[in-house]
């Protein structure tokens, strides 16, 4: 393969490319899905191909093909060149990439238990146990569960001399219970994943969670609506991670900041004029990082699709905005080098700036202390809906479950919680972040981050724990 890829790079150079890279990926996925205690689908999918990216006359071109035929691969190079020339006919500046030393490397995610070697009986037995635990609760009418595993073998080669091979395994699971009552349906769910093997599934305690989720879903049918109005809000780790994803992770993507995602995903309130000016993103207790180097983090890898090594970058320090996520194309706008976040969903797509593991760093509190310290408030967990404007300023999140807090104690469960706020005001009102106790702070696996046209779905991670905000508008319709 090495010779073939080097020939494609050489062809691109001969045809006028000032820069070229070739990415080959082979991705094998094996999801097992269960619905109402029966295996709904067990499948294996294999997807492989090559993407070729070139710069010609200062314009980008990209073409991809699943074909192995050398003639088709050459045609893909020629098509990428043709596209780049068309791009160059409508440019205002030449594309330039920040400098990068070429690297030759071969890296593999450490896997303790190969998920592809786990028998279907074992996996379906686990999901069936979850179903059995859920349907002990009479109100549970629909259950579902899924175990996913993915192995990605990726080769990146560039005309600058890089040759990088990566082998990344990602494993995850989700379970859902739907309770149905008179005119109402309530769902409780749990989902998580890591770049690791089947040991991930064994860590998730799915059976224990299933019984708890089912009871909660049934109890929600009888629970009163979440009270509306301004209130103190505590987010559980499961919804805090998505809050970080949506209101911090997306606004710091520099390609989006510069306008390249405007039509679909939108722009960002963290405009270039705020960079390096000490802009206050949140309160002093808010510290965020982008860290692609966390062992097992769902958004971890070794090199991005520019060939830049994975890094840990401070994003918000003591509430002050510090850094964007960057690529080789965008970092130069600020006189920086790339912090290594340019990623494509697969061989067929161009890399875009994507979240790695974007983390709300652990704080000095515990959840118990936070509740005790709250006179009146609502604790919300597990995202049910999320919606943000096109600059990530105004947002609205719905949760699956909530509890009212009075005088430092949880007093009742309430349903259909939602809250809405303006991002910098919201994070500015944050006065407590948990993580002090073992198990409170964890890196959650997000399996559904969409961006780009055509849409590319990737799998970031988010370290988070319970976090408290003051004076937030709570309740659907508020």
């Amino acid at each position, binding site marked *: 393969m090495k010779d073939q890829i080097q020939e494609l790079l050489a062809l691109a150079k001969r045809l006028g490319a000032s820069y070229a890279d070739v990415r080959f990926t082979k991705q094998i996925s094996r999801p097992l899905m269960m619905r109402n205690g*029966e295996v709904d*689908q067990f499948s294996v999918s294999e997807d492989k191909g090559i993407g070729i990216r070139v710069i010609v006359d200062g314009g980008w071109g990209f073409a991809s093909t699943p074909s192995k035929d050398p003639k088709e691969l050459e045609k893909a190079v020629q098509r990428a060149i043709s596209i780049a020339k*068309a791009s160059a006919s409508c440019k205002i500046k030449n594309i330039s990439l920040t400098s990068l030393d070429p690297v030759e490397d071969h890296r593999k995610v450490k896997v303790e238990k190969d998920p592809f070697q786990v028998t279907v009986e074992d996996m379906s037995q686990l999901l069936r146990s979850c179903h059995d635990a859920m349907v002990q609760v009479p109100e549970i009418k629909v259950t579902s569960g899924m175990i996913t595993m993915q192995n990605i073998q990726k080769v990146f080669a560039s005309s600058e001399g890089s040759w990088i091979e990566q082998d990344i395994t990602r494993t995850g699971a989700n379970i859902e219970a739907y309770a149905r009552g008179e005119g109402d349906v309530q769902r409780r769910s749990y989902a998580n994943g890591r770049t690791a093997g089947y040991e991930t599934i064994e860590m998730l305690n799915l059976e224990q969670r299933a019984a708890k989720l089912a009871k909660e879903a049934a109890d929600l049918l009888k629970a009163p609506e979440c009270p509306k109005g301004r209130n103190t809000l505590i987010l559980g780790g499961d919804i805090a991670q998505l809050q970080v994803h949506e209101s911090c992770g997306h606004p710091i993507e520099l390609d989006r900041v510069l306008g390249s995602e405007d039509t679909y995903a939108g722009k960002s309130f963290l405009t270039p004029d705020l960079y390096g000016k000490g802009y206050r993103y949140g309160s002093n207790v808010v510290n965020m990082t982008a860290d692609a180097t966390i062992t097992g983090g769902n958004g971890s890898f070794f090199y991005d699709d520019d060939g830049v090594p994975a890094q840990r970058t401070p994003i918000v320090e003591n509430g002050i905005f510090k850094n964007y996520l960057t690529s080789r194309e965008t970092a130069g706008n600020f006189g920086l080098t790339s912090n290594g976040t340019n990623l494509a969903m697969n061989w067929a797509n161009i890399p875009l700036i994507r979240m790695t593991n974007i983390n709300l760093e652990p704080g000095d509190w515990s959840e118990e202390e936070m509740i005790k310290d709250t006179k009146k408030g609502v604790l919300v967990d597990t995202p049910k809906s*999320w919606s943000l404007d096109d600059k990530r300023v105004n947002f609205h999140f719905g949760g699956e479950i909530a509890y009212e807090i009075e005088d430092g104690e949880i007093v009742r469960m309430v349903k259909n919680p939602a809250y809405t706020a303006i991002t910098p005001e919201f994070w500015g009102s944050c006065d407590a972040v948990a993580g002090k106790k073992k198990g409170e702070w964890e890196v959650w696996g997000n399996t559904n981050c969409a961006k780009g046209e055509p849409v590319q779905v990737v799998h970031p991670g988010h370290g988070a724990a319970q976090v408290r905000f003051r004076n937030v508008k709570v309740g659907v319709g508020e």
Partner: protein
Amino acid sequence: MIHRDQAERILKTVLQASTADETQVVLQSEDLCQTRFNNNWIHQHLFRETYSVEIKVIHQNRVGIATVNDLDESALRKGVADAMHNASFVKPNPNLVPLPEPKPIREFDGINQNTLLLSDMDRANLVASMIAVAKENHVDASGSFSNELSSIAVANSKGVMAYHAGNNLRIRNIMANGLQTGYAEAMATDVKDIDFVAVAKDALWKSKLKAEESLTLELGSYDTIFEPQAVADLIRFPGYIAFQGQSFLDGRSFMAKTMGERVFDEKVTVYDDAYHPRHIPMPMDAEGMPKQKVMIIENGVAKGVVFDHATAVKAGKESTGHATSGRRGGPSPSHLIIEPGHSSLEEMIRNTKRGVYVTRFHYTHCPEPMHVIATGTTRDGTFLIEDGEIVARLKNLRYTDSMIRVFANVDSLSRQQYLVKDWWFTFTMLVPAMKIRDFTFTGNTTF
């Protein structure tokens, strides 16, 4: 793209290789050209060739699936073996619905030659023509131009053998006049049916309209006029949540308990028709079943939902040709249409004492699916109407409202329908512009 002869060879190879009780194979291919631009230049530009073969076997009441994107005979045979292997591990399901028997399909050629012949430079030139409008008017153009050529071929061991190929294109454009933006889009099968400069000018006038300042609207309920792409985002929620057979059977759709009852305003008629002459036509679904026209809401009354084969059998009905492929599968509307009314955008504005005009939405979501309570923000042109005229630009607004209530409060629909997609790209729909009484805005944003 994979043509019929090659597709049928691949399908037959798979069927012949299978020893399962039943086998289904779905071959999908796509050649996609996408040109994206912002700040008056092309910043992303690609050609993407993809194909996949999804092999589903049913053997002794067990289902196994394998998907490959390698078309070599050996890879296809391995795919069949993998599917059989997967099935062998699955507990038999006595309730499994067998694969469907073949049904006649109204075949047609969906490929438009004008669109097929567009070159990379042609696409760049069309985008450049829009950028020229921006430059002449001292604004910045951004947007996305996609040109998609795709095929689907489906066969099963009961004799289904169906193929369809088609192409379409879509242009979307934002004009940025400083911080004020305007948006327009167009979609068609024939490139000659899209006036790219007209699309640019449509986005341009909205970016220039009342651009001096943006007011903050007092929150509450307002008579609200929606451009078609905003209507698409409103009907999307009932579309994927309530108008399909699986959620209907599960009781997760409000239609489950309201069939035959009035649920929307009597002016609202919604149906799914893949043969509508103004839609992107499609004769079949991912099970090779013919597309049927399905009346969903007729004059405000709940009439039906769409089914794939399995949900249809469970509901005691016939498939309506709305199976999807992929990981989750299941039934889904594919060609939603809202019947037009008797008004126009201009008349709606003229007949509004005080109200809001919405160009499009961004990132809508549904916190309460059972009551279809949805939320989202406006973008790229939100305006205040007073005494029949647009009098000011508004800062973007968040709405939170039940779509059941919204469609029960329809004041008027435009005579003209438009082919649009919702923000999420879930559906391509043919919908009119719409005016709603008392639409609820629950939040302001800062721009």
